[in-house]
């Protein structure tokens, strides 16, 4: 007799004959739209029904809020890049052009949900209302993570690509196990989808039906490596079906479409319908970081073509056309952005202070005898210097 085993999620089922596994229809339910979902065309005009799939347009209030945050986010991003030039930040990876993905993503979440960001997702962090100076601590170099992940339900920004995906899945599964309705959203880049952890994480999510939404910000580059050298897939969203995960692709420069698709993905995950994979097609307008030289690997006209699809301009045009946004609102948003940028400047002008002896404090809950000893030796050195 086999042990009765319903499994944490996956059921231990008898192995059926292959004929029974023929399920082209099942697969069909999981595949993304053949063309990315789009609510606003490149000029900010509403698209026709067939480009919207079955998704609902977000409320104008939400879109107006997204607009405001995108204006602030872009200003913040520009300010951070400027601070690298003044040596106030060690390095900064800009997300100029990816505002709709990062801000749309976070706005689809509840405060009780979890976010798993990468090094590029600073705009997502401030949208989670994390203090901008704390958000920039990693890049300023005074510690590895400057905010309290538990307090903000936002994991530390992840640098080793795709390694945070299994973390999001485990955390979401843990919440589900406790009967909580928490959803975890994890951002990953187009390059990150090539890593083994992307594969292992998505498979775990599907097998355990964990409430996780995977958002691929396909900005067309992994540093210098273009999408065409990263994958031969028709679109990255087609990776979902191989795990049994529902998938969608969306115009990542269309905040309305991003919000519509991610709200659906998040709420269906919350409702217990399992994980969801969304590929957001966007573009990295700046170089990989301030230290990178994009002219070595891409042409300016390619960038220009994408600037014409600017997510802020498109949303602005649309909201103005519907009257949900006025010129005053726009002015207000810009003013708010300047105030915010000023706070960031001031916050980062103060020289950070870190006690070198703190290096030994967090390696373990209690320093080992070896670390206590070494802490003493460093203390001796510091006294010697003093």
């Amino acid at each position, binding site marked *: 007799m*086999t*042990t009765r*085993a*319903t*499994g*944490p999620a996956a059921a*231990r089922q008898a192995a059926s004959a292959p004929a029974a596994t023929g399920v082209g229809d099942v697969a069909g339910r999981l595949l993304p739209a053949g063309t990315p979902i789009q609510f606003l065309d490149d000029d900010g005009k509403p698209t026709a029904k067939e480009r919207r799939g079955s998704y609902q347009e977000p409320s104008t209030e939400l879109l107006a809020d997204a607009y405001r945050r995108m204006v602030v986010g872009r200003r913040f991003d520009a300010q951070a890049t400027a601070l690298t030039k003044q040596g106030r930040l060690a390095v900064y990876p800009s997300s100029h052009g990816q505002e709709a993905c990062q801000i749309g993503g976070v706005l689809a979440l509840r405060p009780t949900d979890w976010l798993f960001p990468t090094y590029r997702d600073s705009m997502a962090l401030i949208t989670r209302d994390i203090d901008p100076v704390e958000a920039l601590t990693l890049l300023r170099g005074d*510690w*590895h*993570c400057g905010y*309290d*992940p*538990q*307090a903000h339900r936002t*994991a*530390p920004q992840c640098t*080793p690509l795709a*390694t945070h*995906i*299994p*973390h*999001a*899945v*485990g*955390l*979401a*599964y*843990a*919440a589900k*196990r*406790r009967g909580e309705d928490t959803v975890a959203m994890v951002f990953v880049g187009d390059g990150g989808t090539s890593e*083994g*952890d992307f*594969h*292992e*994480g998505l*498979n*775990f999510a599907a*097998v355990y039906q964990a409430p996780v939404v995977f958002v691929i910000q396909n900005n067309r580059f992994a540093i210098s490596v273009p999408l065409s050298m990263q994958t031969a897939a028709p679109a990255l969203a087609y990776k979902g079906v191989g795990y049994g995960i529902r998938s969608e692709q969306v115009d990542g420069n269309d905040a309305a479409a991003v919000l519509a698709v991610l709200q659906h993905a998040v709420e269906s995950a919350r409702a217990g319908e399992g994980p969801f994979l969304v590929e957001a097609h966007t573009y990295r307008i700046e170089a990989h970081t301030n230290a990178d030289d994009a002219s070595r690997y891409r042409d300016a006209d390619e960038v220009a073509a994408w600037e014409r699809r600017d997510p802020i301009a498109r949303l602005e045009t649309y909201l103005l056309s519907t009257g949900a946004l006025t010129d005053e609102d726009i002015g207000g948003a810009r003013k708010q952005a300047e105030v915010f940028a000023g706070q960031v400047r001031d916050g980062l002008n103060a020289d950070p202070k870190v006690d070198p002896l*703190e290096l030994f*404090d*967090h*390696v*373990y*809950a209690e320093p*080992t*005898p*070896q670390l206590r000893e070494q802490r003493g030796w460093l203390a001796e050195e510091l006294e010697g210097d003093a």
Partner: protein
Amino acid sequence: MPTLTMAQALNAALRDAMTDDESVVVFGEDVGALGGVFRITDGLTRDFGEDRCFDTPLAESGIVGFALGMAMNGFKPVVEMQFDAFAYPAFEQLVSHVAKMRNRTRGAVNVPMVIRVPYAGGIGGVEHHSDSSEAYYAQTPGLKVVTPATVEDAYSLLREAIDDPDPVVFMEPKKLYWSKAEVSLPARTEPFGRAAIRRSGTDATLVAYGPTVPVALEAASAAEDEGWNLEVVDLRSIVPFDDDTVTASVRKTGRCVVVSEAAGFAGVSAEIAARVQERCFHSLAAPVLRVTGWDIPYPPPIIEKHHLPGVDRVLDTVARLQWDDEPDHRFLEAVPA
């Protein structure tokens, strides 16, 4: 007192921990219905349900990363890596995340979890089933690394590992799974960071851990015939390390041999030798010598016995501790007048 094998003691430790603490979950490859290839998780799914002990897809990096996520959210995962070499796919998760999460978040995010690694050889396993991988973990700050050599320690150290607030790599010497002892559980022995004197002696100290502890003890008994009274130290805990016990022993005996199954080069045995001579130099009548596996990939089953440090190799090495100042024939050096 009942006689238990180390495997049974480990199983009992998991059971008792799961009973005492609802947040303890056990998962990995084949740990459910099968009870693990070594049966360490035997019956846990039956008795605690698949919510508490479950099989995972076949992906070690996924297992460790998933465990870290659960640990971030209130659970205490105990994951099984099926064999030493099959933990390597999880290396990045262990080194870049499990070991560093507390530190990078200044203590805000703790990931208490146990990574169980059946390790080392002597069981006639084919390639990739007998690696001594402890040095990879011991070299990684942020991980605790412990390994039992007795049935009682197997129970106690595993319970402590599960209770520990930090991630623990729990190295299980495969060839000792079937070793037996009379123990009454729940037993609690010395905590992490404390080595144990398994045999006290006066002439030289043998430092061993995990699979080589029984070898060292056997060698110590055999050494009596040669007129050597050897002390045997079982490290138990590699990280944290018990300098006090090891140093006191060597300062007392004045001679030291480290016995470890792993390849010697840059292994844990090197650290032990380095620390001992740093701290006991003036007490030493001879250099600290190492008896280890050779610097080769683990051999095929029929010749593994020529790789593993055995009693004879230990005794030959003890004999080289310059008892009557005759120089070591292996490392001849002109002794300065």
